[in-house]
């Protein structure tokens, strides 16, 4: 973990209310997919706390990262307006996703704005011949993001929308699509990695698949470095810190 300034290099609106930002630092530290950054959202408008945002893409050579975030409150509104300049941040935080050696096929399950960090997993492990079956779920067509990016690097991309409004996708929940493919033997994952809202994790748990499954959870944070115990996630082993023990936990260990 390092404390750095990130230089805003690019800031584009992917669709209304969702921003993609490219950030540069000459001192970018080692990165593991699924890790996140804790970025300052300025100090105007009474803002104090940093915002935890996952890394979508990581380019070690260019020393840049890309983040994709939804504009929700004061902090993300501030960030969305930046066209340049330096922002203090601590990075990279958290444990990240592990794809153990020997794993050949991975199912990635993303719900809405939980999707971005899954891309960094493919980015890192695809060259080793690991195949990624990606399932992304959104509320509706108007909420879909990053589908072209994922389509380009996935063995197969399945997009679901709750209301079926996305033409190239399916109607229903992302977990329904996964269930169907696994039960039919169309996809035989050695590992499932997921990031999304808690109900999605509940649905994933209910599938009772025999595949090792890891999920990346969210929590409101204070320090973001493991020192304040604000970011508790209830697990079978007691409260764990999302910022340092997580954000990735074994699905069966998290009390949903």
């Amino acid at each position: 973990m390092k404390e750095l300034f990130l230089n805003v290099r690019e800031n584009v609106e992917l669709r209304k209310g969702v921003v993609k930002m490219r950030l540069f630092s000459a001192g970018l530290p080692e990165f593991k997919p699924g890790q996140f950054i804790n970025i300052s959202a300025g100090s105007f408008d009474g803002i104090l706390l940093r915002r935890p945002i996952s890394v979508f893409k990581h380019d070690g050579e260019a020393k840049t990262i890309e983040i994709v975030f939804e504009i929700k409150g004061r902090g993300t509104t501030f960030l969305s307006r930046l066209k340049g300049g330096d922002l203090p941040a601590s990075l990279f935080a958290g444990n990240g996703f592990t794809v153990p050696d020997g794993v050949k096929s991975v199912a990635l399950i993303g719900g809405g704005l939980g999707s971005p960090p899954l891309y960094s997993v493919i980015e890192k492990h695809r060259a080793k011949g690991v195949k990624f079956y990606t399932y992304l779920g959104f509320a509706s067509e108007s909420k879909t993001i990053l589908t072209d990016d994922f389509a380009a690097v996935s063995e197969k991309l399945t997009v679901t929308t709750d209301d079926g409004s996305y033409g190239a996708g399916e109607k229903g929940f992302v977990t329904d699509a996964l269930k169907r493919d696994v039960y039919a033997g169309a996809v035989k994952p050695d590992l499932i990695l997921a990031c999304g809202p808690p109900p999605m994790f509940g649905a994933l748990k209910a599938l009772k698949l025999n595949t090792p499954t890891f999920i990346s959870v969210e929590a409101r944070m204070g320090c973001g470095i493991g020192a304040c115990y604000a970011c508790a996630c209830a697990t079978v082993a007691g409260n764990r810190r999302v910022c340092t023990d997580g954000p990735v936990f074994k699905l069966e260990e998290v009390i949903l």
Partner: protein
Amino acid sequence: MTYNPMEVNICGVSFKNPVIAASGTFSFGFEFSKLYDIDRLGGISVKGLTRERREGNPPPRIAETYGGVLNGVGLQNPGIDVFINNMMPFLETKRTVVIANIAGDTEADYCYMAERLSETKVSIIELNISCPNVKRGGLAFGVKPEDVGAITKAVKKYTKKPLMVKLSPNVADIAENARAAEAGGADALSLINTVSGMAVDAETRRPILKNVTGGLSGPAIKPIALAMVWKVYNAVKIPIVGMGGIMSASDAAEFILCGASAVQVGTANFANPLSAPQIADGLRRYVDKHKLRDISELKGRLIVD
């Protein structure tokens, strides 16, 4: 020994500078030591310790308010034994003052912990009788002056270590509580702990914290904290460690002007994890700029015309 104008002495304990990391925002120093050399700090007040391990409150445990942070962590900590056996060996390798912050359900808990800590290299025991986020204990001992006096007196019998009593702002008259602690044998006072508060989400119609209410910290409480430090400074003779919303060296100087011998920095560690050592460096520059012999020269020197 070279002369150090930043050195302060609080109840016989020497701090290389008056900046101390505040309890609950710094854990046991390990995480921050990966970002900077924590020996740059005058001291560390560790996360509030209880007799047994505690899981704390259910999440969400933190919310951001305007210029403030509301927390309802609820004293999650590994317990006094794990602190002594697993955390102290790390802290002993550091050359910064270690303050053990303790909270109990009963008077016996406080006494037991104070006694256990007597065998350790902890320099000061900070009696947390001001945590607003736990149902039992904590604040239960910190509201009425007679309770403050009684718990201080009781704990004092179990330890020879200097005792610093941490006062709550959520009381009728903090000066009275300060006097009661002093009369009970407190060697120093620290103030303020968080201010009882609440954050609500109008859309979901729910409180943001699972615990409903929590403790407010950060710049939003600085004026309250300054007034209380000033009031207490004028009420007692024992040294005061001031805190509440210190984000910069000039904030720290304001507390010292109001009578604090040293300060604690809490929420600022979240906004900028390097803020505590930066505040220490900034105070040094303040001393030079104002041509002070040493930082203690500033203590209580508020000019009231």
